[in-house]
C-alpha cells in the first residue's frame, strides 16, 4: 500500500505567538499566563528570523545565576535541586530582564521540508516535545509538537 509522506509544513501550527529580543519579562509573562502549561516561546528578529527560544527553565534560571549558557560546560557542578520558593526576585526585574537575556541562543528548530518521521526522531533524540519550524531563510513559520505528529498519524490511519 502506498504510504503518503507527511511533511512538517502540512502538520505544524501556523498561528503562533512570538516575542522580540526587547520584550520585557513582565510583558512576556502577561502574554502567556493564561496558557495551561508554559509554552516554548520563539524569539524572533523584526523580519521573523528565529534567534532564540525561551522555556520555563530559562526564566527560572535567570534568578539563580546570570549566564546559564556560559556555565553549561562546567564539569562536576553539584546538581542541586532548584528551590523556586527561595528565588531572589524583586519587582523591578520584570522590566529589567528582556527576552534577549533569557533566551537560549542556539535554539533547536525544524525546517518546513522535513518529513514528519525525521522531525519525530529529532524531537526524541533531543528529549523535547515541541520545536519551532523555519523556512529556508530562517524565518519562523510554525510550531510543531509531538501531539501534532500523533494526531496526523491517527488521522492518516483513519482513527478519526
Amino acid at each position: 500500500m502506498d504510504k503518503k509522506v507527511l511533511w512538517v509544513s502540512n502538520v505544524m501550527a501556523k498561528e503562533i505567538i512570538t516575542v522580540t529580543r526587547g520584550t520585557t519579562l513582565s510583558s512576556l509573562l502577561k502574554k502567556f499566563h493564561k496558557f495551561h502549561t508554559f509554552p516554548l516561546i520563539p524569539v524572533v528578529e523584526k523580519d521573523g528570523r528565529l534567534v532564540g527560544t525561551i522555556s520555563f527553565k530559562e526564566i527560572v534560571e535567570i534568578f539563580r545565576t546570570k549566564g546559564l549558557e556560559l556555565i553549561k560546560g562546567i564539569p562536576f557542578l553539584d546538581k542541586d535541586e532548584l528551590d523556586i520558593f527561595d528565588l531572589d526576585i524583586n519587582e523591578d526585574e520584570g522590566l529589567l530582564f528582556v527576552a534577549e537575556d533569557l533566551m537560549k541562543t542556539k535554539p533547536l528548530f525544524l525546517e518546513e521540508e522535513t518529513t514528519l518521521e525525521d522531525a519525530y526522531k529529532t524531537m526524541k533524540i533531543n528529549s523535547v516535545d515541541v520545536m519551532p519550524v523555519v523556512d529556508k531563510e530562517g524565518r519562523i513559520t510554525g510550531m510543531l509538537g509531538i501531539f501534532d505528529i500523533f494526531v496526523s498519524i491517527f488521522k492518516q490511519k483513519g482513527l478519526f
Partner: protein
Amino acid sequence: MNTILSLGFILLVGLLFAKIIGKFKFPSVTAYLVIGIIIGPSIFNVISKNVTGMSGFISTVALSIIAFSIGQNFSRENFRQIGKTILWISILEACGAWLIVTFVFLVILHQPFYIAILFGAISSATAPAATLMVIREYKAKGVFTNTLLGVVAIDDAWCLLIFSVSLAISKAIHANLVAPSFLMQAFFASILGISGSFLLGGITAWCLSYLSRYIHTPAELLTYTLGFILLNSGIASAFNLSVLLANMVMGALLVNINKEPSKFFDSLHSVDSPIYLVFFVLAGASLEVNLLLKLGIMGICYVIFRVAGKMLGAYAGGKISGAPMAVRRYLGLGLVPQAGVALGAALVAKTDFPAVGGIIITTIVATTVVYELFGPFCTKIALEKAGDIEIGK
C-alpha cells in the same frame, strides 16, 4: 576488599560524605578528595590495590569526558556573549599563574624546567563549581559576579590548552635531555604532538557529527558519544598525542559544526557523576602522607604564587580591557579555589613522569584541599569588596 566491593564502597561512602559536608556549604569535590585520603593506602588502606591501580585508567576516562565537555565553551555564541573583558582577564590570569609558578619553581626552588613548567600549567586551573556555589549561596549579583562567572567558565579550557602544550614541551625536553641539539628536537616534538592532537580531534569531531544521522534514540546517543570519546582517547594514547587536547578539540569543533550539539554533551550527564566521584576519591587516595612532610616550602610557594599570578594576571587583563576598578582589583581573589582539572592534570603528569609523579600529585591534592577549604572564603571576600554581596551577609 575485592575490586567490586571497593567500587561500591567508594560510591556509597563518597555520596554519604558529600551529603554531610554539603550541609556545611562545601562542594562535593572536597568531600570526595578527603574521603579518598582517609580510605586510601596512606591512612586506613581499605580499598583494593586493584582499584587504586586503576586510577590511571579511570582518570583518563574522566578527563576525556571533562575535556570533551569543556570544549563546548568554544562555541561562537559563547565568545559573542563573554566579550573582551572576560576574554582578556581569563587568558591573562591563567597565563599569569602559569608563568609565575613556573618561574618560582625554576629559580627559587631550583626544580628542573620540565617539572617547573608542569606545576605552572596545573596552577592555571580554577574550580568553577566552588565559585558558583559561593555566588549562589550569597545570591551575588552585579558586574563583578558576571565577570567572575564568565572567567571561571572559560578558565579551565585555557588550563587544558596550557597544560597540553606544557606537557608536550616537558616530555620532549625530558626525552631529549642527553641529545646535543635537544632544544630544536624538543621544539619540533612538541609542535608535532600538539598539531597531531588538533588534527585527531578535528577528524573525530567531523566523523561524530556526520555519522550521528544514524543515531535515533537517547540510549544509542550515549553509547555513540562515549564510544567516540574513548576512541579518540585511545588513538591519542597510541600515537603519544595529548588525550586532553584531542578531546577538547573534538568538543570545540562539534559545538560549531553540528546543528544540535547540546544533545551529545547532555547525553553524558546520565553517566558522568559516578565516574567523577570515583576519579576524585582515587585522586585523594593518591596522596602520599610521607611525602606531605617533605612538601614544606614547595607547597607554600605553590599556594602563594598561584594566587599572586592569578591576581596580577586578572589586574592586567582588567586594565587592558578597561574593566571597572573593582573587577581589576578583586577578581584574582575570586579565583583562588582549585579542583578537578588541576587534579586530573596532576594525575596525567604522574602517569607520564612516574619518578616525580608522587610529589606532583601529593602537592596538588594537598593544596587542592587547602584551596577548597579557604578558596570559597576568598571568593566571598572578593564579592563583598566588589559590592556584589552585602558585607557580613
